[in-house]
């Protein structure tokens, strides 16, 4: 039978030691900064072709219908929204300094942050898809009058099919997955929060 003081004695005998030194950490910091800049760049790069196409169409094609311009503006707005939201998220993660706060406050921040991410990934993504669909539909109106009806119907059918697959199938899977992850995360955070409650 051992008492707690004997356990402290065992604890003091341990030879476990960290396997990293301070120089590695400084190097790691430099690397992670580079990685972050690359991530920023990648996010912007991903949307650049779409923005380029919109700008190209706007400048080079003289549309007769105002709906085409409105459609293009909505599509461009969606692209900018996507970039902005990605950059804001990265910036928020980098600048969050709740690691210095008491564990309860840090857990509360995590809960809030996860919630906002969840809303972004589910509700906002729905709005984003609807807006993008609306923008493309408005853009297509003019083509009804200038293109062969069968070609136009083909394009519209393909677009609707793609949006239906995204909205009905892919997005449902995505939202279900996010919901499951979110519930699990919040439950775990709640449990931790209760553990750090200042009550006995």
């Amino acid at each position: 039978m051992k008492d707690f003081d004997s356990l402290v004695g065992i604890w003091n005998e341990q030879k476990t030691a960290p396997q990293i030194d301070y120089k590695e950490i400084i190097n790691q910091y430099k690397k992670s900064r580079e990685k972050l800049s690359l991530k920023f760049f990648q996010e912007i790069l991903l949307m650049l072709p779409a923005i380029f196409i919109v700008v190209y169409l706007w400048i080079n094609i003289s549309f007769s219908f105002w709906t085409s311009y409105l459609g293009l503006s909505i599509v461009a707005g969606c692209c900018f929204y996507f970039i902005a939201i990605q950059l804001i998220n990265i910036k928020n993660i980098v600048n969050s300094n709740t690691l210095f706060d008491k564990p309860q406050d840090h857990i509360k921040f995590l809960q809030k942050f996860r919630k906002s991410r969840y809303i972004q990934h589910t509700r906002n993504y729905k709005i984003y898809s609807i807006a993008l669909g609306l923008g493309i539909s408005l853009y297509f109106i003019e083509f009804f009058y200038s293109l062969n009806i069968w070609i136009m119907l083909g394009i519209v059918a393909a677009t609707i099919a793609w949006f239906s697959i995204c909205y009905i199938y892919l997005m449902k899977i995505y939202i279900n997955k996010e919901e499951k992850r979110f519930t699990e995360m919040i439950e775990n955070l709640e449990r931790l929060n209760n553990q750090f409650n200042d009550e006995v």
Partner: protein
Amino acid sequence: MPSQEQIFKEIFQANSKKIYHLCFGYTGDDAAANDLLQETFLKVWQNLDKFRNQSMISTWIYRIAVNTCLTYLKKEKRQAKDELTPNIIENKEEDFEDKEKQEQVKTLYECISKLDENERIIITMVMDEVPYPEIADISGISEGNLRVKIHRIKHKLTELYNQHERL
């Protein structure tokens, strides 16, 4: 005047071992403990200017470590492992007595891994002789309540250890 790197080196050398114990006690895994230690000191390096004016640097470092541990669990969905990695016993040529001691250390870490998350954090600090007011400050629990908690955790850990020894 000492350089940033020199200050960081001193802070790292003075605190890394205890922080590593905390991370090891929390995760029960050597690789994860090293990852958490690295993440903690990355934050320290990043905020070195703020640390310079702090009288109790160790409190801040502990707090970052605790929060990093809590976040890490969520991020990686890691659970403390019952089986500890074998390199806890470092030297194969150690004498029998030393091996036995390190075996006891391994058992102790296994018992710690069976505690709740906050209990693991608190008890590793207690065993590393962090003063109670500092533990209270780090964990955000009032000193009175902390003393009661520590009493319970000590009892729980001792029970677990003795049960393990009886097996």
